[in-house]
């Protein structure tokens, strides 16, 4: 069986359910690492083909979603390999997150049409079907080319190239030192080498940081309004967005599902989500609403934690585990002139007082939302446009390899092994440009060193 690949199998559009598919060597083991069946006798590693288990999808200890895993055993599957299909609760962000977990655990992102290609290679398709697949793949080769060409002209190329050039130079230093032990070359200065690696890793990470901005530009910043029932979330949402999207009553628990709207602030797109008030209600519908609110809270870029005169310290518990730098504390109903509770445990990004009859306070809130993500700092000229998730995952892998490399250097691993690992990092970067690592490194050696008999 070939290496495990993973992809989102359903259309990339908002839907009630979504499916992630893994296929290939160890696909069941990989899925078992993050999918925990609620019934331990139904651990997916123990399942037969065509059997399913209900369970939790975890990112480490962090609960992401619940769902159903369906296991297929080779050769009885679409691809003819071991396959796991995980059905979960839609939401592109959740699906994307689960896909990230798959790759973290050893799967590779599938190329376009790769499942079908495997199905075809394993004799699961008829010749006509196969030819159709071939056409698709031919088309893919064109789009690959276009992508590479675009990368080559873009800022990403320049940046990735700059980093890989430096890494190639570092690798060249090691290789020539290893291959020409008799020449009087200077020894490798490990401290300096480590610094250089660290510096290149930072550069990579800053490109990846910009990728996050890119997501923001494409999909908008996700802002969730969270708080106890009846603190005025829906009113605020309607005020921020300037439209009556949420139903507003003074009955606690009016909002039972996540309600979305959007607003432009300083030219940027913000998606605002009104959620059900967090409460221990025994009402089934309300409880489901609360669960969704918590999920929204976890995936949002920014959280507005709305409080009023009745909010207490323990209400803050729902924010546990959430990055506090992305939370804005809102004292709503400021017209009541209540004593503002000081939530000293938390360091909020901003604190704003609002009232439904004070329009300028709403404007202040909007500005605060805008400020959290420091969108004003995006330099559009410098922003490398990441073209697809495969390229992003190349950058991520490269950064990860460098991180391991630094660990290895700290434990004094010999340089022959370091060189090999460094080449893996370079290889990942060169994927973006279509070059081959061995050619690049050797050229560098000969242009820089005076070696040989």
């Amino acid at each position, binding site marked *: 069986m070939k290496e495990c690949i993973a992809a989102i199998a359903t259309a990339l559009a908002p839907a009630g359910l979504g499916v992630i598919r893994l296929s290939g060597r160890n696909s069941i083991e990989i899925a078992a690492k993050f999918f925990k069946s609620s019934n331990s006798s139904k651990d997916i590693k123990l399942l037969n083909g065509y059997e399913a288990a209900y369970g939790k999808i975890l990112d480490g200890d962090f609960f992401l979603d619940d769902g159903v895993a369906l296991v297929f055993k080779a050769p009885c599957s679409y691809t003819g390999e071991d396959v796991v299909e995980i059905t979960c609760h839609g939401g592109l962000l959740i699906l994307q997150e689960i896909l990230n977990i798959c790759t973290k655990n050893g799967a590779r992102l599938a190329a376009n049409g790769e499942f079908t290609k495997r199905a075809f290679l394993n004799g699961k398709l008829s010749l006509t079907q196969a030819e159709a697949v071939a056409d698709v793949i031919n088309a893919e*080769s064109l789009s*690959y080319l276009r992508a590479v060409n675009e990368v080559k002209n873009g800022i990403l190329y320049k940046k990735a190239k700059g980093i890989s050039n430096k890494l190639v130079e570092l690798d060249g230093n090691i290789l020539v030192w290893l291959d020409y032990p*008799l020449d009087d070359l200077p020894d490798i200065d490990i401290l300096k080498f480590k610094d250089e690696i660290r510096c290149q890793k930072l550069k990579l990470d800053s490109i990846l940081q910009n990728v996050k901005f890119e997501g923001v530009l494409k999909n908008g910043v996700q802002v969730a309004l969270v708080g106890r029932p009846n603190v005025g979330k829906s009113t605020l949402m309607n005020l921020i967005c300037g439209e009556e999207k949420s139903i507003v009553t003074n009955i606690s628990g009016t909002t039972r599902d996540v309600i979305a709207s959007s607003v432009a602030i300083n030219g940027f797109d913000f998606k605002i989500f009104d959620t059900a008030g967090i409460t221990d209600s025994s009402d089934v519908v309300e409880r489901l609403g609360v669960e969704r609110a918590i999920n929204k809270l976890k995936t949002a870029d920014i959280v507005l934690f709305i409080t009023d005169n009745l909010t207490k310290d323990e209400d803050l518990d729902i924010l546990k585990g959430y990055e506090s730098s992305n939370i804005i504390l809102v004292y709503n109903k400021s017209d009541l002139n209540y004593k503002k509770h000081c939530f000293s445990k938390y360091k909020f990004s901003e604190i704003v007082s609002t009232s439904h009859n004070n329009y300028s306070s709403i404007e202040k809130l909007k500005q605060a939302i805008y400020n959290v993500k420091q969108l004003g700092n995006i330099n559009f000229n410098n922003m490398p446009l990441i073209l697809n998730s495969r390229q992003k995952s190349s950058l991520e892998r490269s950064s990860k390899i460098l991180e391991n490399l630094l660990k290895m250097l700290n434990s004094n*691993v010999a340089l022959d092994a370091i060189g090999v690992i460094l080449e893996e990092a370079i290889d990942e970067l060169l994927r973006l440009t279509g070059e081959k690592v061995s050619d690049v490194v050797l050229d560098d050696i000969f242009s820089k060193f005076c070696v*040989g008999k």
Partner: protein
Amino acid sequence: MSFLLDYADVVVIGAGHAGIEAAMASARLGCKTIIFTLSLDKIANMPCNPCIGGTAKGHLVRELDALGGLMGRVADKTTIQSKILNSKRGPAVRSLRAQIDKVNYHLHMKNILELQDNLYIKQDEVIKIDVNNSKVCGVYTKLDAYIKTKAVIVACGTYLKAKTFIGTVSSSSGPDNAPAANMLSCSFKNLNINLRRFKTGTPARVNRKSIDFSKLKIQKGDEKIHSFSFFEKTEIINKIDCYIAYTNSKTHDVILKNLDRSPLYSGDIKGVGPRYCPSIEDKVVRFKDRPRHQIFVEPIGFNTNEIYLQGMSSSLPLDVQISFLKTIEGFENIDIMRPAYAIEYDCCNPTDLYPTLEFKCVGGLYGAGQFNGTSGYEEAAVQGFVAGVNAARKVRNLSAFILTRASSYIGTLIDDLVTKGCTEPYRIMTARSEYRLLLRHDNADRRLSEIGHSIKTLSDEDYGIFCEKQKLIKTLKEGLEKAIIRPTEELNAKLLSLNTSKISFPRKFTDLIKRPELNFDILQEYCEFDCKNLNFEIKEELEIDFKYEEFIKSQQEKLLKFKEMEDEKLPVNIDYENISGLRKEAREKLNAIKPINLGQASRISGVNPADIVVLSVWLNINRNCL
């Protein structure tokens, strides 16, 4: 008018390092083999360095030995100084390098060829290759002899239309003043095989008595001496010392002042030289800020005063050579016996070859060694072996013998040559292998001896030695994997003195040995499993296996992926022009290289991953009709 001299299964042109391995392999596989040399006195000649091995090259020699080749055994018998390189820099790149007695090596090799059954040595010059229906059928010699044959291996080194340069004096001559082979090139042209010009060079040989050694730094051989051969253990002793000298600014001034008298700079030499083996004038020009360059002063034999000056190859005129050498400390009274020279020669483009080293356009015609665009005795020898085995197997209707990149440096070298080609003389380096943590010199037998035995180049007797050793290693490994080291005061004192942390509870031997500060010899004292009386080479092999366990595992995973691609065979008669979806550049490259599997196709420059996908899909649709 030519006469029919003889019939042979395989004819080998040239008795250098490639030719002799080719001829020996073919003869030992039962093929009647004739080997031609311009002079019997030049068999296995070392016209450059009197040395075998070095980084990656030492790996090649070990690999060749593991397969049953000759070079390692004969090197062991004629070594005058032996050294392991990189003993501290990294276990995977450690390699053996031995100074060799040049004359002795030649005599040994010549005698081995003379004694070999099925092998006939002829002093004559092959001037034409006879081809019928795109298949080799014979060769013509200068003395009008015609030999009928099924396979020809071209291993003519740097002799084809060779031209040497010493300053402005150039002559039609091979290395060491041997005659050049001027006729054969034309035969290749008639076969539509393109040749090109490469260039290399060698330094002066000087008389030992003219050097003041008190001013030089001495270089001793190793105390613990390794041998190249896994099977035939020769007792090796260091018979000589080597020395190091340095150029200085005066040397560089002399060279720079006389650059216009170098044929390299005047444009007389058109061949492409190796960047990794620059002449001294190249070094001085390209690396202006280097205050000095190193010179290795190496005797070329035990019974001679001739000394080789590694690092000083040059094409400058003799008077300039004398004056720049005299500026060097210790060389004030230097006496040059043979001057340095540059040599230019014809060679083929190795992308015209299959990985068996057979020409794509002429069946039964093989190339090996410097003729294929490589440099170095070791690179030549391994190609000779591969070409010899393949020629013999083809004559006997057996399958092709191809080593993969993942198996060996031999496989890496040949794959590089036939897939990527070379634009300068190709030298093997550890940097060329992506599997270099697996391809070590200590485990070459483990990697290749099974194969050597199965193709019958490794004798049953040697294979027996191999099996014994593997059995021993297996037992030792199992024992050591279970072995426990208990904390004692003595041990902890030792650990602290070596700058590593002490232990407070019993630890596995295999865990402790992973610490960079520790090695086998230190730990064996505290180990409950008795391993004190082991041969040091076996200890080294085990130690690296344990220390690098994690990296070895990850490289083996990479290897699995590699194998998937190598297993997708591509027939060589595919016309890539007819495959829709491939880009134009990819079609052209694929048609030129004719890769034998998807893996090789993916390594061709100009073939991108999308082309490979197209190709694999096409392959699956058409598998049944190919």
